[in-house]
C-alpha cells in the first residue's frame, strides 16, 4: 500500500498528491439539502453534480438529490443563461420543489456567468424561489462552499423586519447526528432556535418502504426569513460558519458569535455557558450529569490514552475541535492537517496546543495533503490516526489503528448518525479511541500478556 511514497520530503508547490479536501460545489450542495423542499442545482457540466451526489450518497448512505445545467460545449462558449432558464422550468415542472439553490462551478465561473442577473430574469411559478451562491472550485474547499451556500440563503431570504424570540444557529459542516445533538442541547437549555441548515431527517431518513424525494426535514423558508429577526445568532465552526455570520450581520444587523465547534469538554462547556447567558437559565442538571459521566470515563481510562501520539486530519473546524478533545483525553496530538487552504487553522490549532504546552514536536498545516501527512508519519510515526476515510491507506501502509471522524467517511456505516459535538460526542470519541488503542494492544501483545481485566 502506497509503496511509492518515499520517506524523504521534497518541497512541493505544483502537485497535490492524495487530496485532503475537495471542491466548493459539493459543500454548497450539502448545505442546500438542509433546507426544506430545496433542490440543489449545479450550474456547470453534469459531471460535477454526478460526482457530488456520489460522494454525498457514499458518506450518508442516503439519496442525495441535485440537478445540473448540463453544459455542453456550446453553453461553455455562449454562456449558460439559457441552460439555467430551461433547468429551472424543468425542475419546477417535474420535481416541484419549493426552492432551487443554485451554486456555480469552475466552468460557469471561468466563463463569467452572472447568476444574480440570470435569476432576476427568470419567470418563476407563483410562490417558487431561486437563490444562488458563487462556488468556483479553484477557491477554498468544500467547507467554504458550504459556508457560501448558507450565506446565500441568508442574503436572499433572511428578513430584518421579522421579529423572533428565537436565536439563530449556524451549525457548520457537521453530520445529521450532530444536528440532533445540537437540538437536544438547545432544548435542555430551554433555548428555542432556528438552525440553518438542518440536514437531519433529510440525510438520515428512516426506512419506511416509501421513498420521498423531499423528506420532511430541513430548515423551512419561513425559518430562514425569521433568521433576520433573531435576537442573537451562534455560528459554530470558525471557517464554515464565518460567511453566514457575516451575511446575517450585514443584511439584518444580527449580532453573531463565531465559535469553534462544541467538540470536547471545554468547547461544550463554553457553548452551554453561552446558551445560558442568552436564555438566562442555568446549565441543565441533566447536562451536568452527562458531563460528569464523560469525565468519569476519561479519568477511569486515562492511562490508556496517556502520551499516545495521534495524527488528526480532515476539515479545519473538525480538526480544531478534535485537537481540543484529544488533548483533554491525554493524547499527544502530533500532526494536525487539513487540505483546506486557510491559515486561520494553523493559528487556532497552535493556540490550543499552546494552552496545553503541547506545541513541541508537532506539525500543524493547512493546505496540505495525505501524501505529506504520510511522509511526516514515515519520518516520525504516530500511534493512532483520527480522520476521514482516505486515511485508511496510511493506516494500512504503516499499520496504525484508525478512528473515523469527519467528512467524508465512505467506507463505514452509521457515522453520520452519531454526534461528535457535545458531551455525548466526546464520550463517543473517547470510547472509539480507547477501543482502537486497546484492540491494537490485544492484537499485538504476547499471549501471556493478554488479560481480560483492566
Amino acid at each position, binding site marked *: 500500500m502506497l509503496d511509492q511514497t518515499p520517506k524523504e520530503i521534497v518541497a512541493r508547490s505544483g502537485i*497535490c498528491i492524495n487530496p485532503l479536501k475537495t471542491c466548493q460545489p459539493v459543500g454548497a450542495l450539502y448545505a442546500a439539502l438542509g433546507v426544506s423542499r430545496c433542490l440543489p442545482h449545479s450550474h456547470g457540466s453534469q459531471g460535477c453534480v454526478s460526482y457530488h451526489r456520489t460522494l454525498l450518497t457514499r458518506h450518508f448512505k442516503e439519496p442525495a438529490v441535485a440537478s445540473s445545467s448540463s453544459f455542453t460545449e456550446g453553453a461553455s462558449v455562449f454562456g449558460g443563461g439559457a441552460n439555467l432558464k430551461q433547468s429551472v*422550468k424543468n425542475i419546477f415542472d417535474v420535481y416541484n420543489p419549493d426552492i432551487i439553490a443554485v451554486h456555480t462551478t*469552475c466552468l460557469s465561473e471561468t466563463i463569467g456567468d452572472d447568476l444574480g442577473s440570470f435569476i432576476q430574469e427568470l419567470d418563476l411559478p407563483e410562490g417558487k424561489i431561486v437563490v444562488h451562491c458563487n462556488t468556483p472550485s479553484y477557491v477554498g474547499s468544500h467547507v467554504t462552499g458550504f459556508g457560501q451556500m448558507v450565506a446565500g440563503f441568508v442574503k436572499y431570504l433572511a428578513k430584518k423586519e421579522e421579529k423572533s424570540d428565537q436565536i439563530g444557529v449556524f451549525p457548520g459542516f457537521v453530520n445529521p447526528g450532530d444536528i440532533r445533538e445540537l437540538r437536544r442541547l438547545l432544548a435542555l437549555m430551554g433555548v428555542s432556535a432556528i438552525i440553518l441548515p438542518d440536514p437531519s431527517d433529510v440525510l438520515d431518513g428512516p426506512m419506511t418502504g*416509501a421513498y420521498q*424525494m423531499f423528506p420532511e426535514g430541513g430548515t423551512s423558508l419561513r425559518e430562514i426569513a425569521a433568521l433576520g429577526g433573531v435576537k442573537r445568532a451562534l455560528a459554530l465552526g470558525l471557517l464554515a460558519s464565518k460567511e453566514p455570520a457575516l451575511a446575517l450581520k450585514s443584511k439584518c444587523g444580527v449580532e453573531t458569535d463565531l465559535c469553534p465547534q462544541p467538540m470536547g469538554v471545554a468547547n461544550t462547556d463554553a457553548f452551554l455557558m453561552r446558551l445560558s447567558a442568552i436564555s438566562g437559565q442555568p446549565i441543565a442538571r441533566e447536562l451536568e450529569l452527562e458531563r460528569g459521566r464523560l469525565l468519569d470515563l476519561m479519568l477511569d481510562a486515562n492511562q490508556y490514552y496517556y502520551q499516545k501520539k495521534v495524527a488528526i486530519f480532515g476539515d479545519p473546524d473538525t480538526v480544531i475541535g478534535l485537537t481540543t478533545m484529544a488533548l483533554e483525553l491525554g493524547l499527544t496530538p502530533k500532526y494536525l492537517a487539513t487540505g483546506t487552504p486557510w491559515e486561520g487553522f494553523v493559528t487556532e490549532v497552535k493556540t490550543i496546543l499552546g494552552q496545553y504546552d503541547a506545541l513541541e514536536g508537532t506539525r500543524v498545516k493547512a493546505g496540505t495533503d495525505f501524501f505529506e501527512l504520510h511522509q511526516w508519519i514515515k519520518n516520525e510515526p504516530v500511534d493512532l490516526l483520527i480522520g476521514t476515510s482516505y486515511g485508511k491507506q496510511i493506516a494500512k501502509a504503516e499499520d496504525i489503528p484508525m478512528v473515523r471522524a469527519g467528512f467524508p467517511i465512505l467506507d463505514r456505516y452509521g457515522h453520520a448518525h452519531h454526534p461528535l459535538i457535545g458531551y455525548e460526542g466526546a464520550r463517543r470519541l473517547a470510547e472509539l479511541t480507547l477501543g482502537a488503542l486497546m484492540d491494537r494492544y490485544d492484537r499485538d501483545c504476547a499471549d501471556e500478556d493478554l488479560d481480560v481485566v483492566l
Partner: protein
Amino acid sequence: MDFKSAVLGRYNARIYKSRKDHILEVKAGEDQKIAANTRAVPGLMTNRGCCYAGCKGVVVGPLKDTCVITHGPIGCGFYSWGTRRNKARPDADGNNYIQYCFSTDMQEPDIVFGGEKKLKKAIDEIMAIFKPKRIMICSTCPVGLIGDDIHAVANQVEKDYGVTCVAFSCEGYKGVSQSAGHHIANNGLMRRVIGTDDSGSLGQHTINLLGEYNIGGDGWETERLLRAIGYQVVAVFTGDGSVADIARSHRADINLVQCHRSINYVAEMMKTAFGINWLKVNFIGLKAIAQSLRDLATFFGDPVLIERTEEVIAEELAAVTPDVEYYRSRLSGRTAALFVGGSRSHHYQDLLADFGVETVLAGYEFAHRDDYEGREVIPDIKEDADSKNIENLVVEPDRRYRAFLTPERYQELKETIGLEEYAGLIRGMANGGWVVDDLNHFETEEMIRLLKPDVFFSGVKDKYVAQKAGVVCRQLHSYDYSGPYSGYRGAVNFGRDVTMGLFAPAWKLVTPPWLEAKNA
C-alpha cells in the same frame, strides 16, 4: 397505462419531445430504433457523468504504471480517486500508481494567468519524487476555457525527461456524457501507446482483453479462465493494465471486446492499422462465458485449444453448479431492472437468466444507438453538434499490418461467431421488456412504482432511492465492495449477493408490528 405513456404524460412539451424516443417497448423480431447519445435535458436529474469521467475515470485511470495527473481544480481528481474499484497489483517494477491521486489543484491565479506553469512544475515534482516512466495529463473544464496547451507541456516533458507523456483534452463539457471521454482516451492510446514496443516475442494464441476494467477483480477471473485454456493475455485495456503491456498489444492475434462502448474505437482502429480482428465477448453469465470461450477457440481453429476449452468449461461449470443451483432456487421467478453503463445492462441479463430472473427494464447511461440496436446502424447515425466536436481519428494500415485470417475464413467467422459484430442490447431482450436510454431520477421512481422489479441494478446515486422504496439495489458499477462477478466463480458471487439482498432478515422488520396489525 403503460410505462412509457405514464412517464411521458408527466412531462412538459419540451421534455416530452426530448425524451419520447429514448424509451421503447421491446417487440421481438422487429428492428427497433432508439434515440441515444443526445444531450441530457438541463434540470432533469440524469445519472450521467462527463467527458473527464469517461477519459480519466474509466479508461486512463486504471493504468498502474502511469502517473495520471488531473490538471484542474481539486474536485475532479479527488472524485475519481479510488472510487471505481478497479483493482491493480504492482507492475514488474513494483509500481502501482492507482492508489494515488495527482492533481494540479488549480487556484484562482492559475485560472487568471494560465495554468501551464503550474502543470510543468507539478510534473517536475512528480519526476523528482517518483521518477515514473510514464505520465498522462487529463484536462478539466477550465483548462480548455483558459486555453492551457497541455499537449505542448507534454511534449516539453518528453524532451526534458525522456519519458512518455500523453495529454488528453477531456474537458467535462465536451460531448454529452462519459462517452466522449472514452473516445478521446481511445484516440490517445492509439496515437501514442499502441504499437510502440516491438521487442521480445509474445508466444502463441495471444489475445488482448479490451474494455475490461477489473472492477472487483473481474479481469483477473476472466484471465484465469483464458490462461487455463492456453491463451496468452498480452494486454488488458485497462483494468490492472499498464502502458508497458498496451505498447505491445498491436502484436496480439485477436482483441476481445468486453465493454463495447468504451473501447470499440480502439478495436476498430487496431483492425485497420494492424489487421487484428476483434470479437465481442461476454464473461458475465454461464452460457455467455461458454459461448465466448467457444467462439474464441473457433477463431483460432486449433483442435487442442478447442478440446481444452470444452474441458475447462466442463470443469468450471461442475465446480459451481451446486451453488448456482442453490441460488437459482432462491431467485428463480424474480424480476430485475438494469441501468448501468456501456455493456453491463446487456451482459448481466445473461447472468440473471442463468438464475431464472427476468429483466423487465434495461438501459444505458451513455450508450450510442449501436449499443442498443447493433453495429449495423453505425452508418445511419447522424453526427450532431456535440458528437462533431469529438475527434474521429482515422488510421491507416501500419507497416506491421498482419492478417491472421484468410479473407474466406474471415467471412465464414463473421457469420458463425459474429466476428467484429455486436447485435446490441435490444435483440437480447424478451418481448414486452422496456429499454430506456439515460434513465433519469423521475423515470427511476416511476419505473419502481409501475414495473415493480424485485431487484434494481444501478449505481450508488440510485441505490438508496430504490432501497428507500423497498426495492433491493445492487451496485453494478462497483459491486458494493464485492466481486468478482465475471467467470464461473463470479456467477456464484453474484447469485449470493443478490440472494443476500433479497432475503436480508431486516426487510421483514421494516413495518412495525403495531402498524402491520393496523394495516391488516
